[in-house]
């Protein structure tokens, strides 16, 4: 019961702020609604029993990425709003139509899977060597579990992600610097 109330409240806030992010005219206000949205998503992660990911969400998204957005919005000091520019080739209605198509597709998938026997009956144990270690870790806590998986089964993707971040960092510096 309490979980249901929490879920519906958080969902309402997440969706409401998402709509505001997309619909607000002022870009700075839009960025602020994005921060609030991310904070509520973090609360949803806590509800889902993933406190480590919730902390990462606040730290990386709210404290890092969105600050970057805010910087760019403040640097890109617009004299005229991009929405004020009129382009005769632009068809905004087409965008709504495409979004409606996506909505119909998602709805169809939901309707199909609600009827069909798609969901397996019981969750199986992960078929890996680390499975026993993971189940031993489960008693300790969420952070240890995630860390254990990251540094054993998913070590190579982890290294690739760190490589990607390094490349992105160098790329951003090269792009943003006027002359090297």
């Amino acid at each position: 019961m309490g979980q249901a109330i929490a879920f519906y409240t958080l969902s309402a806030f997440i969706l409401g702020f998402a709509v505001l992010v997309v619909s607000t005219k002022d870009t700075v206000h839009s960025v602020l609604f994005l921060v609030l949205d991310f904070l509520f998503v973090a609360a949803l992660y806590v509800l889902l029993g993933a406190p480590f990911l919730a902390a990462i969400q606040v730290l990386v998204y709210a404290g890092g990425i969105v600050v970057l957005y805010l910087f760019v919005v403040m640097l890109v000091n617009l004299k005229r709003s991009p929405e004020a520019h009129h382009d005769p080739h632009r068809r905004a209605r087409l965008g709504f139509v495409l979004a409606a198509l996506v909505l119909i597709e998602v709805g169809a998938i939901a309707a199909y899977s609600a009827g069909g026997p798609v969901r397996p009956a019981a969750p199986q144990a992960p078929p890996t060597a680390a499975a026993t270690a993971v189940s031993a870790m489960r008693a300790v806590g969420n952070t240890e579990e995630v860390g254990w998986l990251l540094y054993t089964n998913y070590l190579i993707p982890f290294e690739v992600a760190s490589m990607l971040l390094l490349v992105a960092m160098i790329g951003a510096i090269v792009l943003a610097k006027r002359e090297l």
Partner: protein
Amino acid sequence: MIDQLVIPLVKILIVLNATLVGVTYMVLLERKVIAWTQSRLGPMRVGPYGALQPIADALKLMIKEDITPVRADKWVFTAAPIVAMVPALIVYAVIPFGDTVNLFGREIPLYITDINVGLLYIVSVASVGVYGIILGGYASNSKYPLLASLRASAQLISYEVAITLTLVSVILVAGSLSMVSIVRAQESAHVWFAFLQPIAFVIFFIGGLAETNRSPFDMPEAEQELTGGFHTEYSGMRFALFFLAEYANMIVVASVATTLFLGGWLRPFPNVAWLSFLDVIPSWTWFLVKSFGFLYIFIWVRATLPRYRYDQLMRLGWKVLIPLAIANLVITGIVKVLLL
């Protein structure tokens, strides 16, 4: 019922009020200490030796006119002081002030909560605190606050990297993210982590000065250059909120440093038997004394050192502190693997 609801609420009330009173008296302490350094007396008029000065200041700020500039972004202008204040206060939820005490036949732990990701919670909440500064500067729609807020946020983000890296090396030594477990780890290691991680401690101290915009890193509030910093356009109670948030952040840094590096609520030499008469003093007193010492050094530094130039500050952060912190982390990891 009592354990679930009443006791936590009472604890939250006590912690919040103690923090706010502590913050106001912190201002008085700062004025007094700086006055003594400069052979002055400091505030003396209100109450004996100026003891009631904070109350007079608070009253003055409350009855002052509250001005919103005409061209300001009204909603953001109003929200910014609140956004600055809230993260500074909710961090206290995970800071352990003392050991469990026995009150009226109940075991009461002297912390509001002990979550599994306590340290990560502190870091992430602190990273949200930067919004108050950015928004305050942006919403004022005035050039000095905007410049100051850009400076402040660049500084906060740079020094956050160094601080977080030092925290990782502490986590490596302690083997836990929970604040209470970190204190217990220092108890079982028979030594404060300030001695196991001296480099991390120094980097944390310097970074803490920068994170709270304290001298010698108070570029965002350099009165001589920026007429006061990001809160130039604020007056009355809203200005007071920014001011309180800054001092509350100082107390946060001091408490985190005490917990991570100075053994939290533990008495000095917790494993030396002949010093056990020190146990008469309650554990939270040790915590307060250590935090107070840390805060005193903050004020002392402000009264002593001149301000850094902005490029020097950035060079110190990126070219000295962060490489040092990474080297410290790598060495800690190697030593930990080799010794186990």
